[in-house]
Protein backbone atom coordinates (compact mmCIF):
# COMPACT_ATOMS: atom_id res chain seq x y z
CA UNK A 1 0.00 0.00 0.00
CA UNK A 2 1.28 3.46 -0.92
CA UNK A 3 0.25 6.87 0.30
CA UNK A 4 0.47 9.61 -2.34
CA UNK A 5 0.42 13.26 -1.29
CA UNK A 6 0.01 16.22 -3.58
CA UNK A 7 0.34 19.91 -2.69
CA UNK A 8 -1.84 22.79 -3.90
CA UNK A 9 -2.07 26.47 -3.05
CA UNK A 10 -4.77 29.11 -2.97
CA UNK A 11 -5.12 32.60 -1.56
CA UNK A 12 -8.22 33.87 0.21
CA UNK A 13 -9.36 36.30 2.87
CA UNK A 14 -11.43 35.67 5.96
CA UNK A 15 -12.60 37.26 9.18
CA UNK A 16 -13.14 35.24 12.33
CA UNK A 17 -16.39 36.44 13.82
CA UNK A 18 -19.05 34.33 15.57
CA UNK A 19 -22.53 35.73 14.95
CA UNK A 20 -23.77 34.44 18.32
CA UNK A 21 -21.26 36.52 20.28
CA UNK A 22 -21.09 40.25 21.02
CA UNK A 23 -18.55 42.61 19.45
CA UNK A 24 -16.41 42.59 22.58
CA UNK A 25 -16.62 38.82 23.04
CA UNK A 26 -15.54 38.35 19.42
CA UNK A 27 -12.66 40.77 19.84
CA UNK A 28 -11.53 38.95 22.94
CA UNK A 29 -11.91 35.48 21.43
CA UNK A 30 -10.34 36.05 18.03
CA UNK A 31 -8.01 39.02 18.64
CA UNK A 32 -6.62 40.52 15.43
CA UNK A 33 -8.34 37.79 13.39
CA UNK A 34 -11.59 39.65 14.24
CA UNK A 35 -10.50 42.98 12.70
CA UNK A 36 -13.59 44.29 10.89
CA UNK A 37 -12.46 44.09 7.26
CA UNK A 38 -10.77 40.69 7.48
CA UNK A 39 -7.32 39.63 6.30
CA UNK A 40 -5.86 37.01 3.96
CA UNK A 41 -3.58 34.01 3.75
CA UNK A 42 -1.74 31.96 1.18
CA UNK A 43 -3.16 28.56 2.07
CA UNK A 44 -1.20 25.45 1.18
CA UNK A 45 -3.10 22.19 1.15
CA UNK A 46 -1.83 18.63 0.97
CA UNK A 47 -4.21 15.90 -0.13
CA UNK A 48 -3.18 12.32 0.71
CA UNK A 49 -4.69 9.18 -0.80
CA UNK A 50 -3.89 5.54 -0.17
CA UNK A 51 -3.94 2.53 -2.47
CA UNK A 52 -2.02 -0.36 -3.98
CA UNK A 53 0.27 0.19 -6.97
CA UNK A 54 -1.56 -0.57 -10.20
CA UNK A 55 0.36 -3.11 -12.34
CA UNK A 56 -0.36 -1.36 -15.61
CA UNK A 57 0.64 2.18 -14.63
CA UNK A 58 3.00 1.57 -11.71
CA UNK A 59 0.97 4.21 -9.89
CA UNK A 60 -1.31 4.25 -6.87
CA UNK A 61 -3.17 7.29 -8.20
CA UNK A 62 -3.32 9.34 -11.40
CA UNK A 63 -2.22 12.83 -10.29
CA UNK A 64 -4.11 14.41 -13.19
CA UNK A 65 -7.41 13.03 -11.88
CA UNK A 66 -6.65 14.35 -8.39
CA UNK A 67 -5.60 17.73 -9.83
CA UNK A 68 -8.88 17.99 -11.68
CA UNK A 69 -10.94 17.09 -8.60
CA UNK A 70 -9.07 19.55 -6.35
CA UNK A 71 -9.22 22.30 -8.95
CA UNK A 72 -12.96 21.88 -9.40
CA UNK A 73 -13.92 21.37 -5.73
CA UNK A 74 -11.41 23.54 -3.90
CA UNK A 75 -9.25 25.88 -5.96
CA UNK A 76 -11.93 27.29 -8.23
CA UNK A 77 -14.44 27.95 -5.41
CA UNK A 78 -11.93 29.30 -2.87
CA UNK A 79 -9.00 30.91 -4.70
CA UNK A 80 -9.01 34.72 -4.53
CA UNK A 81 -12.29 34.73 -2.63
CA UNK A 82 -13.45 36.20 0.64
CA UNK A 83 -14.46 33.08 2.59
CA UNK A 84 -17.06 35.05 4.58
CA UNK A 85 -18.88 36.18 1.43
CA UNK A 86 -20.62 33.96 -1.06
CA UNK A 87 -19.52 30.56 0.25
CA UNK A 88 -22.65 28.86 1.50
CA UNK A 89 -21.23 26.88 4.39
CA UNK A 90 -19.50 29.92 5.91
CA UNK A 91 -22.73 31.89 6.09
CA UNK A 92 -23.40 30.15 9.43
CA UNK A 93 -19.96 28.86 10.31
CA UNK A 94 -16.83 30.77 11.30
CA UNK A 95 -14.25 30.27 8.51
CA UNK A 96 -11.48 29.18 10.84
CA UNK A 97 -8.95 26.95 9.19
CA UNK A 98 -10.33 24.06 11.27
CA UNK A 99 -13.70 24.52 9.59
CA UNK A 100 -12.08 25.14 6.22
CA UNK A 101 -10.10 21.88 6.53
CA UNK A 102 -13.31 19.96 7.31
CA UNK A 103 -15.13 21.59 4.41
CA UNK A 104 -12.33 20.77 1.96
CA UNK A 105 -12.23 17.17 3.21
CA UNK A 106 -16.03 16.93 2.88
CA UNK A 107 -16.01 18.30 -0.68
CA UNK A 108 -13.32 15.84 -1.76
CA UNK A 109 -14.97 12.90 0.04
CA UNK A 110 -18.40 13.56 -1.48
CA UNK A 111 -16.99 13.71 -5.02
CA UNK A 112 -14.27 11.09 -4.59
CA UNK A 113 -16.22 8.14 -5.98
CA UNK A 114 -17.08 9.86 -9.24
CA UNK A 115 -13.42 10.88 -9.76
CA UNK A 116 -12.00 7.51 -8.65
CA UNK A 117 -14.73 4.93 -9.32
CA UNK A 118 -12.78 1.82 -8.24
CA UNK A 119 -12.11 0.45 -4.77
CA UNK A 120 -8.77 2.32 -4.71
CA UNK A 121 -7.33 4.84 -4.08
CA UNK A 122 -9.14 6.09 -0.98
CA UNK A 123 -8.98 9.62 0.39
CA UNK A 124 -6.88 9.52 3.56
CA UNK A 125 -6.06 13.01 4.75
CA UNK A 126 -6.27 16.73 4.08
CA UNK A 127 -3.62 18.93 5.64
CA UNK A 128 -3.91 22.69 5.37
CA UNK A 129 -1.32 25.27 6.33
CA UNK A 130 -2.82 28.70 6.95
CA UNK A 131 0.68 30.09 7.47
CA UNK A 132 3.91 28.09 7.59
CA UNK A 133 3.37 27.82 11.37
CA UNK A 134 -0.35 27.00 11.66
CA UNK A 135 -1.22 23.61 10.23
CA UNK A 136 -4.48 21.61 10.47
CA UNK A 137 -5.21 18.01 9.50
CA UNK A 138 -8.42 16.09 8.88
CA UNK A 139 -8.22 12.36 8.23
CA UNK A 140 -10.64 9.59 7.34
CA UNK A 141 -10.97 8.54 10.98
CA UNK A 142 -11.32 12.01 12.48
Amino acid sequence: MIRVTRTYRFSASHRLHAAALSESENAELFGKCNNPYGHGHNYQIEVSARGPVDDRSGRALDPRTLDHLVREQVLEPFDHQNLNEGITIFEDLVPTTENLAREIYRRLAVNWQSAFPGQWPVLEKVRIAETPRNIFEVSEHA
Partner: protein
Amino acid sequence: MLITKRVEFSASHVCRNPLLNDRENEELFGAAANKHGHGHNYTIDVTVEGDPDPVTGMVLDLKKLKDVVNREVIQTYDHRFLNYEVPPFDHVVPTAENIAIDIWNRLAPHIAQVGGQLQGIRVHETNDLYVDYFGETA
Protein backbone atom coordinates in the same frame (compact mmCIF):
# COMPACT_ATOMS: atom_id res chain seq x y z
CA MET B 1 10.78 6.97 18.48
CA LEU B 2 11.17 7.84 14.80
CA ILE B 3 14.31 9.29 13.29
CA THR B 4 14.44 10.49 9.68
CA LYS B 5 17.47 10.94 7.45
CA ARG B 6 17.00 13.00 4.30
CA VAL B 7 19.10 12.43 1.16
CA GLU B 8 18.89 13.64 -2.43
CA PHE B 9 19.73 12.36 -5.87
CA SER B 10 19.07 13.44 -9.43
CA ALA B 11 17.98 11.02 -12.11
CA SER B 12 16.08 10.75 -15.35
CA HIS B 13 13.25 8.41 -16.17
CA VAL B 14 10.43 7.81 -18.60
CA CYS B 15 7.04 6.50 -17.54
CA ARG B 16 6.22 3.87 -20.17
CA ASN B 17 4.86 0.41 -19.72
CA PRO B 18 6.57 -1.74 -22.38
CA LEU B 19 3.43 -3.89 -22.64
CA LEU B 20 1.43 -0.90 -23.92
CA ASN B 21 1.68 0.92 -27.24
CA ASP B 22 2.74 4.59 -27.70
CA ARG B 23 -0.80 5.92 -27.71
CA GLU B 24 -1.80 3.97 -24.59
CA ASN B 25 1.31 5.15 -22.76
CA GLU B 26 0.66 8.77 -23.69
CA GLU B 27 -2.91 8.48 -22.52
CA LEU B 28 -1.86 6.92 -19.22
CA PHE B 29 1.18 9.05 -18.36
CA GLY B 30 0.83 12.28 -20.38
CA ALA B 31 4.08 14.27 -20.67
CA ALA B 32 5.83 11.73 -18.43
CA ALA B 33 5.67 9.23 -21.33
CA ASN B 34 7.85 11.38 -23.63
CA LYS B 35 10.09 8.66 -25.04
CA HIS B 36 13.40 10.47 -24.54
CA GLY B 37 12.70 10.80 -20.82
CA HIS B 38 12.99 13.69 -18.38
CA GLY B 39 14.49 14.16 -14.91
CA HIS B 40 13.88 15.16 -11.33
CA ASN B 41 15.79 16.10 -8.21
CA TYR B 42 14.48 13.45 -5.86
CA THR B 43 14.46 13.90 -2.09
CA ILE B 44 14.25 10.73 -0.01
CA ASP B 45 13.29 10.59 3.66
CA VAL B 46 14.38 7.35 5.32
CA THR B 47 12.59 6.86 8.66
CA VAL B 48 13.84 4.37 11.24
CA GLU B 49 12.01 3.38 14.41
CA GLY B 50 13.77 2.45 17.65
CA ASP B 51 14.43 3.35 21.27
CA PRO B 52 17.30 5.64 22.25
CA ASP B 53 20.20 3.68 23.70
CA PRO B 54 20.52 4.53 27.43
CA VAL B 55 24.28 5.05 27.12
CA THR B 56 24.55 7.00 23.86
CA GLY B 57 21.13 8.69 23.91
CA MET B 58 20.79 7.82 20.23
CA VAL B 59 18.43 5.53 18.31
CA LEU B 60 21.20 4.76 15.85
CA ASP B 61 24.50 6.02 14.53
CA LEU B 62 23.49 8.51 11.84
CA LYS B 63 26.85 8.23 10.15
CA LYS B 64 26.30 4.48 9.67
CA LEU B 65 22.81 5.12 8.33
CA LYS B 66 24.19 7.70 5.90
CA ASP B 67 26.83 5.23 4.71
CA VAL B 68 24.24 2.50 4.11
CA VAL B 69 21.90 4.87 2.25
CA ASN B 70 24.77 6.18 0.15
CA ARG B 71 26.01 2.69 -0.69
CA GLU B 72 22.64 1.03 -1.34
CA VAL B 73 20.66 3.91 -2.89
CA ILE B 74 22.58 7.03 -3.87
CA GLN B 75 25.44 5.28 -5.65
CA THR B 76 22.90 3.24 -7.59
CA TYR B 77 20.41 6.00 -8.47
CA ASP B 78 22.31 9.28 -8.65
CA HIS B 79 22.80 10.73 -12.14
CA ARG B 80 21.39 7.65 -13.83
CA PHE B 81 18.64 7.04 -16.36
CA LEU B 82 16.55 4.72 -14.19
CA ASN B 83 14.90 2.76 -17.03
CA TYR B 84 18.26 1.89 -18.61
CA GLU B 85 20.64 1.68 -15.68
CA VAL B 86 18.82 0.71 -12.48
CA PRO B 87 17.05 -2.64 -12.23
CA PRO B 88 14.17 -3.43 -11.76
CA PHE B 89 13.21 -0.39 -13.83
CA ASP B 90 14.07 -2.17 -17.07
CA HIS B 91 10.69 -3.85 -16.62
CA VAL B 92 8.99 -1.92 -13.75
CA VAL B 93 7.74 1.62 -14.49
CA PRO B 94 9.89 4.02 -12.40
CA THR B 95 7.02 5.98 -10.87
CA ALA B 96 7.60 7.57 -7.45
CA GLU B 97 5.50 4.71 -6.00
CA ASN B 98 7.76 2.01 -7.44
CA ILE B 99 10.91 3.95 -6.51
CA ALA B 100 9.71 4.05 -2.87
CA ILE B 101 9.14 0.27 -2.89
CA ASP B 102 12.53 -0.39 -4.50
CA ILE B 103 14.39 1.83 -2.02
CA TRP B 104 12.60 0.07 0.86
CA ASN B 105 13.66 -3.31 -0.55
CA ARG B 106 17.28 -2.18 -0.95
CA LEU B 107 17.52 -0.72 2.59
CA ALA B 108 15.41 -3.05 4.72
CA PRO B 109 17.99 -5.88 4.97
CA HIS B 110 20.70 -3.45 6.16
CA ILE B 111 18.93 -1.38 8.80
CA ALA B 112 19.14 -3.97 11.60
CA GLN B 113 22.94 -3.73 11.62
CA VAL B 114 22.71 0.07 11.91
CA GLY B 115 20.13 -0.10 14.72
CA GLY B 116 16.35 0.15 14.79
CA GLN B 117 13.83 -0.94 12.18
CA LEU B 118 12.95 0.64 8.87
CA GLN B 119 9.58 2.39 9.36
CA GLY B 120 8.96 4.29 6.12
CA ILE B 121 10.33 5.66 2.87
CA ARG B 122 9.11 8.99 1.55
CA VAL B 123 10.00 9.89 -2.04
CA HIS B 124 9.53 13.51 -3.10
CA GLU B 125 9.51 13.64 -6.88
CA THR B 126 8.78 17.39 -7.00
CA ASN B 127 7.93 19.96 -4.34
CA ASP B 128 4.27 19.19 -4.93
CA LEU B 129 4.22 15.39 -4.99
CA TYR B 130 5.47 12.77 -2.59
CA VAL B 131 4.64 9.16 -1.78
CA ASP B 132 5.05 7.12 1.42
CA TYR B 133 5.67 3.38 1.67
CA PHE B 134 5.66 1.54 4.98
CA GLY B 135 6.45 -1.98 3.78
CA GLU B 136 4.24 -4.83 2.65
CA THR B 137 2.37 -5.23 5.89
CA ALA B 138 1.14 -1.61 6.07
